[in-house]
């Protein structure tokens, strides 16, 4: 992605710190830039600090120190500009369960100063796009889990934000809805909306996001493009499905080969090794592979390596 260096970033965090009243240091001075138009993954294990970072960005959590800028507007000096640019889809359902779906979306538009007549039109548009129009008069509590997630997306979109923050938007939804939500997120990103996504489904981040930051113990431990990050993977583990059963491998078999079961082998490829070398060895030993797959999602492997290298509470 090519960006004009003179243009303000979609998000610019500098030395952002948060210490909660109980003394927990959730953020220990993070610096983070998100470019305009980016599809950005913010990953980290539970309790790493990503929800705190998102909470501060969306004004739900008070920062202890540091600066937050959104499209050049400073959260301390111009909070209304910051808020008006952001649409938040939080992790937990946070709408009035007893209000009708359409009213929730129209009211949210009202909070952003959009007159009711205009809000009604926009609500109709986002509810239709997210397949909720038929349920517009239903109380929110009567919706299914997937519908509730889509309602939160509709509500976040109604004021046409430039930055969407999606905090685990696909948690607990079935694969069909998840895929339709992925398509939808890609569409709004293509239309120019910057997206920050947190998720525990690393496959989701790998497929959707162009840039990534991994946060752990209140520090950013990785911040690069997805492409660079995956390129830096030192090793990949594959599972091979075999045509004929193999019970024992020759002594000193390379690629860390081991038998998973009689029809499956596990192979570990270091960065300097190629798949051709692996298949040459298999051919030379009369082993025919029908298919192969990554044992772990590639990003997952990187993620696990990265977040296991440090212990929380011991600053590096």
């Amino acid at each position, binding site marked *: 992605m090519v960006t004009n260096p003179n243009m303000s970033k979609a998000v610019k965090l500098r030395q952002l710190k948060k210490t909660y009243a109980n003394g927990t240091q959730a953020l220990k001075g993070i610096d983070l830039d998100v470019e305009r138009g980016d599809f950005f993954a913010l990953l980290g294990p539970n309790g790493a600090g990503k929800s705190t970072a998102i909470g501060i960005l969306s004004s739900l959590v008070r920062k202890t120190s540091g600066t937050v800028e959104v499209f050049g507007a400073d959260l301390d000096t111009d909070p209304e500009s910051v808020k008006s640019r952001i649409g938040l889809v939080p992790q937990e359902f946070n709408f009035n369960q007893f209000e009708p779906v359409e009213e929730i979306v129209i009211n*949210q538009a009202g909070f952003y100063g959009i007159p009711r007549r205009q809000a009604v039109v926009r609500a109709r548009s986002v509810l239709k796009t997210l397949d909720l129009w038929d349920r517009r008069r239903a109380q929110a509590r009567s919706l299914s889990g997937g519908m509730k997630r889509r309602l939160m997306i509709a509500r976040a979109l109604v004021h046409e934000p430039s930055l969407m923050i999606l905090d685990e938007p696909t948690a607990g939804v079935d694969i069909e809805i998840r895929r339709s939500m992925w398509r939808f997120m890609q569409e709004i990103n293509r239309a120019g909306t910057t997206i920050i996504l947190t998720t525990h489904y690393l496959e989701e981040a790998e497929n959707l996001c162009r840039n990534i930051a991994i946060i752990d113990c209140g520090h950013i431990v990785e911040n690069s493009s997805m492409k660079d990050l995956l390129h830096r993977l030192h090793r990949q583990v594959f599972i091979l499905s075999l045509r004929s059963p193999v019970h024992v491998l020759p002594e000193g078999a390379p690629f860390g080969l081991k038998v998973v079961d009689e029809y499956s082998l596990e192979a570990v490829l270091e960065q300097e090794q190629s798949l051709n070398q692996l298949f040459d060895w298999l051919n030379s030993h009369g082993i025919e592979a029908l298919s192969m797959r990554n044992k772990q999602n590639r990003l997952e492997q990187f993620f696990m390596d990265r977040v296991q290298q440090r212990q929380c509470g011991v600053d590096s």
Partner: protein
Amino acid sequence: MSRISRYRVAFTTIVVREILRFSRIWVQTILPPAITTALYFIIFGTLIGDRIGEMDGYRYKDFIVPGLILMAVITHSYANVVSSFYHSKYQHHVEELLVSPVPNWIILLGYVTGGVARGLVVGVVVTLVSFFFTDLHIVNYPLTLLVVVLTSILFATGGFINAIFANSFDDISVIPVFVLTPLTYLGGVFYSIDMLPQFWQDVSLANPVLYMINAFRYAMLGVSDIQPGVALALIAGFVLLLGAVALWLLKKGVGIKS
């Protein structure tokens, strides 16, 4: 769109949502005070009141009308805001407001206006009920309206502060049950403090609700235990004080932001 227009839309949105909320559950919010007031009139006004005779030159059932109206207004203005704002915290939909560019004073004004709306609706209902039992007349309409609106604002703001600190449903009922109700009943709804021994008259003067009920009684009937000017100044002073406290709490994020 100008900032003022955006604020106006946001304010209207909050107020309409609040009015719709208590209107949808009118059986819980509007009907009970009508029934309670009717019972008060039957028991205290007619059955007991006839034996009491006159008070400050009025029949007893006429004397208690202002107190009953204001008691209902106080209770429902407070209850509306404390209940609505606490529910919005409990269900987390207060976050809808916190993430949006609505300034704190609009949030406070919106909720308080919602509370005043319910207080006034209930006040009108109680007044209508009192027509069935008394020969109601009002001496000073503007002052009546001023006192009822100021008192409603005061208790709606109090309800908002209570909701900010509340962490459970118990916390939103403690103040109404253990503070508000005793202060209201001992604030001269059913009696003139002239009837009390001097010591208890002096103690009663420390009860702010006494000033409100007497200001309201003065506006409606033209009789009061308290100087109306003093009472109005006190109510206005409390409105400003509680309003400032509520805004400060919102700014600090007490009870709503971590």
